[in-house]
């Protein structure tokens, strides 16, 4: 998932005031309470009836037909024109490209026992590129980060991850920037592309993977394509947004001088949108990184693989070290691209004398880098990262024993938290959702959708619930929905507490925001590690990881909403003698409710995508089904069905909250 900027903007609030604004809110509350009451009564009467369970190894007809479909694809892979030439061509091209890059940088290139370019050469090339694009400080960061990959013992996995990430990013930019330009210039393109992007961004990352296996089989190409699809929306959206937000006064002035559309684009829109577009590229790189780690599930090369292995064997130490390498990669890429964009700006301002001097420095450093490459091709010490001291092993051991100590020492506390949440929240809600008859739950969900958002989200929800029924995973979906709702509720509590604090206090904002920003750049996979370390493989672990993952985005949205409340209104309320609590509850939170609903919307989507990834660490339900679809051939169809159910859940939750947000905005 990516940060918030690339979401479609919340509908703007028109300036009409409804006199009876308060009444509908109260009525909505009453209606929701009535629905809940009817639900509990229905649950008490019909508990255990028509819950549509499905055993772990059991398959429905639909799921079996998906297996058959996979077999048909496999059989036709070499004979069918589209599969063989089109997708086969893409697959072979990508595979060839990735393995060439790996042979160059990360894997033994036969007959050499090491890659063409050893670690010292790669390090030097990275350093030189960073110096040329982003400056000295970033270069230091990149050198230290790259060195740490070798020291942690994950050199080739780290470089593989970068290869997959940047291969996908390359195609994202190749497709995304022209598409963004087209969107900015044509309403028709916008109308066609926007809903596609919406769906792409609503789809949890987990559900992309199995369908791609149909077309690309498993391996590097499937990983690149999954990453490409996942990382494409930000750059398209932000490019279009950047071009559209060029000041209309400037555009009009340019038009008044007789510029053609091409001149307008080249001399005005693109230069003025450049910084925004670079932000989009940054987001695309971060999204690509997070998907490239998850793509380990389809055998994509990279750091995701050791994490998955370690998670599945509950080896906290190894998971921690590999996860640390991912975090380092994320920080390195984020900081470097940000610095590159700032540098571009500064350089433009600096005037004319700089380039001459710079060219000299770049030339000299390039010679050094080439020398390093030569060394790394000639001497084994400069080629083989395993000759460097190993910090990864001791670190993994230390982490394991530290985790053991923590779990032993705080056994009571962690278990207490887990049990309280499990028995207090999770189990009752799960019982309501999963043990009630399906028709009762469906009716409750549709009624809620109608009350919150109107007939449109209700209609969409009906379709989504129909899909979930159709793929035969009703009860698993309800369990996943339970986890999603519980985690989102906890996220929202955190978001309101921290958001209000940050929105009211500059100091809190300055202190917390960098942490939250950093939290948002970390690929979701990594959050499973600490959650697993503390709470073991349970449903609650997935929930904790989801809270860690979704929290930053939701907190920032609420904080921005609170900050956005007009200071005059707050001042007026204070002048009228309101207490701080009254200002918060009667002025700031109600006025920020659109932001709250938006935070809930984002929270739900982030949580859902993480909860299903939690299937790797005992989260069960749909996530587990997807994972087992990767692991066992006969469960492929079921996994694919679970992916479809996840998408249906995501679209339903997204539409309900989007429409509710739009309503809030209108009030």
């Amino acid at each position, binding site marked *: 998932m990516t940060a918030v900027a690339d979401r479609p903007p919340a509908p703007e609030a028109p300036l009409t005031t409804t006199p009876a604004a308060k009444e509908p809110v109260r009525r909505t509350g009453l209606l929701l309470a009535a629905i809940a009451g009817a639900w509990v009564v229905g649950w008490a009467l019909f508990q255990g009836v028509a819950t549509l369970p499905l055993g772990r190894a059991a398959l429905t007809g639909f799921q079996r037909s998906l297996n058959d479909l996979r077999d048909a694809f496999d059989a036709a892979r070499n004979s069918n024109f589209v599969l063989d030439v089109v997708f086969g061509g893409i697959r072979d091209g990508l595979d060839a490209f990735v393995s060439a890059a790996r042979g160059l940088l990360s894997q033994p290139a036969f007959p050499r026992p090491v890659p063409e370019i050893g670690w010292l050469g790669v390090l030097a090339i990275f350093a030189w590129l960073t110096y040329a694009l982003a400056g000295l400080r970033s270069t230091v960061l990149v050198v230290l980060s790259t060195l740490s990959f070798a020291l942690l013992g994950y050199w080739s996995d780290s470089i593989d991850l970068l290869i997959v990430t940047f291969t996908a990013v390359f195609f994202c930019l190749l497709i995304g920037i022209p598409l963004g330009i087209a969107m900015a210039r044509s309403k028709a393109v916008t109308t066609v592309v926007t809903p596609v992007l919406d769906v792409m961004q609503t789809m949890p990352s987990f559900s992309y993977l199995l369908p791609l296996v149909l077309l690309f089989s498993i391996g590097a190409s499937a990983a690149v394509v999954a990453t490409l699809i996942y990382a494409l929306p930000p750059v398209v959206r932000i490019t279009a947004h950047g071009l559209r937000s060029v*000041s209309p*006064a*400037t*555009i*009009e*002035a*340019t*038009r*008044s*001088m*007789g*510029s*053609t559309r091409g*001149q307008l684009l080249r*001399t*005005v829109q693109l*230069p*003025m949108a*450049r910084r925004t577009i670079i932000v989009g590229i940054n987001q695309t790189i971060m999204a690509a990184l997070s998907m490239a780690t998850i793509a380990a599930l389809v055998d994509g090369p990279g750091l995701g693989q050791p994490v998955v292995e370690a998670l599945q064997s509950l080896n906290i130490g190894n998971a921690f070290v590999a996860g640390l390498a991912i975090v380092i990669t994320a920080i390195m890429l984020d900081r470097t691209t940000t610095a590159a964009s700032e540098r571009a700006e500064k350089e*433009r*301002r600096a*005037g004319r004398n700089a380039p001459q001097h710079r060219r000299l420095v770049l030339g000299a450093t390039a010679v050094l880098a080439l020398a390093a490459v030569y060394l790394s091709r000639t001497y084994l010490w400069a080629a083989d990262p395993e000759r460097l001291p190993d910090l990864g092993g001791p670190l993994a051991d230390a982490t394991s024993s530290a985790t053991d100590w923590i779990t032993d020492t705080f056994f009571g506390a962690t278990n207490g938290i887990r049990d309280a949440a499990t028995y207090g929240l999770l189990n009752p809600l799960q019982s309501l959702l999963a043990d009630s008859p399906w028709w009762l739950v469906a009716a409750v969900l549709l009624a809620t959708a109608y009350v919150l958002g109107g007939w449109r989200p209700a209609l969409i929800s009906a379709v989504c619930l129909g899909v979930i029924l159709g793929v035969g995973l009703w009860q698993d979906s309800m369990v996943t929905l339970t986890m999603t709702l519980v985690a989102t509720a906890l996220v929202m509590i955190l978001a309101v507490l921290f958001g209000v604090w940050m929105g009211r206090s500059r100091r809190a904002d300055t202190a917390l925001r960098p942490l939250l920003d950093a939290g948002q750049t970390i690929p979701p996979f990594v959050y499973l590690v600490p959650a697993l370390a503390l709470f073991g493989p349970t449903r609650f672990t997935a929930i904790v990881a989801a809270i860690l993952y979704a929290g930053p985005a939701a907190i920032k949205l609420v904080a921005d909403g609170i900050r956005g409340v007009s200071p005059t209104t707050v001042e007026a309320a204070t002048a009228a003698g309101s207490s701080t609590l009254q200002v918060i509850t009667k002025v700031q939170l109600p006025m920020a409710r659109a932001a709250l609903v938006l935070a809930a919307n984002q929270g739900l989507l982030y949580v859902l995508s993480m909860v299903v990834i939690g299937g790797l660490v005992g989260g069960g339900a749909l996530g587990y089904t997807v994972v087992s679809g990767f692991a066992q051939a006969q469960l492929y169809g079921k996994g694919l069905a679970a992916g479809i159910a996840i998408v249906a859940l995501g679209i339903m939750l997204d539409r309900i909250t989007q429409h509710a947000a739009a309503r809030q905005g209108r009030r």
Partner: protein
Amino acid sequence: MTLTPERMDEVSARIARLDEARRTPLLHVESLWKVFGPKADRIIGTPDAELSRRELMARTGCVVAVKDVSFDVAPGEVFVVMGLSGSGKSTLVRCLTRLIEPTAGTVVVAGQDITSASDAQLRDLRRKHVAMVFQHFGLLPHRRVIDNVAYGLEIRGDAKAARRQRAQEMVDLVGLAGNENSYPDQLSGGMQQRVGLARALAVDPSVLLFDEPFSALDPLIRRDMQNEVIRLHHEVGKTMVFITHDLAEALKLGDRILIMRDGEMVQVGRPDEVVGAPADDYVRDFVSDVPRSHVLTLRWVMRDPQPEDSLDGPVMGPDVVVKAAAHKVLAAAHPVRVVLGDQLLGVVDREDVLRVIVAEESV
């Protein structure tokens, strides 16, 4: 400005010259309409067109921004369009180069019909003949001052050396020498608008359009910039169409003023005509705060000579502003004779002048 006889004649001669030149106008606008809304083009010519703005909005959902406007601008004339916000003046000026597509009517610039021009012709017109200065400057923030000024030359394909030289001349002309390598955001608002002005002048257009160019500036800087426009007009003599909501600015700059309300023309005339003979109560109300002695000319206060009037007083032209003439009239022993060429138009004595000045204070 001292009141030399040459100066007096110059003013009158300019008025006569512009009146004559208007027969072959540089800019000719006829029955121009702009209606925003669904099926806007179907409204003109129907009885709906006669409705007031509000009624039309209620009936058809359309808004008339410019309603049947016609005027001519002579070469070298400064033509001011004045109105409150929402009066359609900014829409009107954009229709002149089709930045906004007019719904109906004709615009002719230097003999070329703009309304039927092709895209290429229109671009050519914008590149060479008509330049515009905007309220919010519309500068390119990523280009230095000199490159902003050269922009119009660049997009029409002038050679680099030529356009740099021309841009530098324009930068010097508007008084920005030494700032050519700054970026727009390093300049004050007034200086940014000088860049806008230089950019418009750089292409050597025959018509300059100003859309409320000084509204975003502080009052003192606004006055400087108005004087700058007057100076530039003296130096380069361009035809100007100047949009403003500020009556004082209109009276100060305009050879003639078009007053608009709700998209319609209310009055067109010289500043003294607008103040001296308001077309209706709206204009009268508008100009009621104007110090009349600053605008009205002797033409407006003179009377026919009576037999008892002595005709030995000093001679003045009819287009001298009352305020400028007051000192001389009050000091003279005999009534001042108002003369154009050899013809005696009338006389002005102390009482006539005092009436204007005192009446002002009682308003």
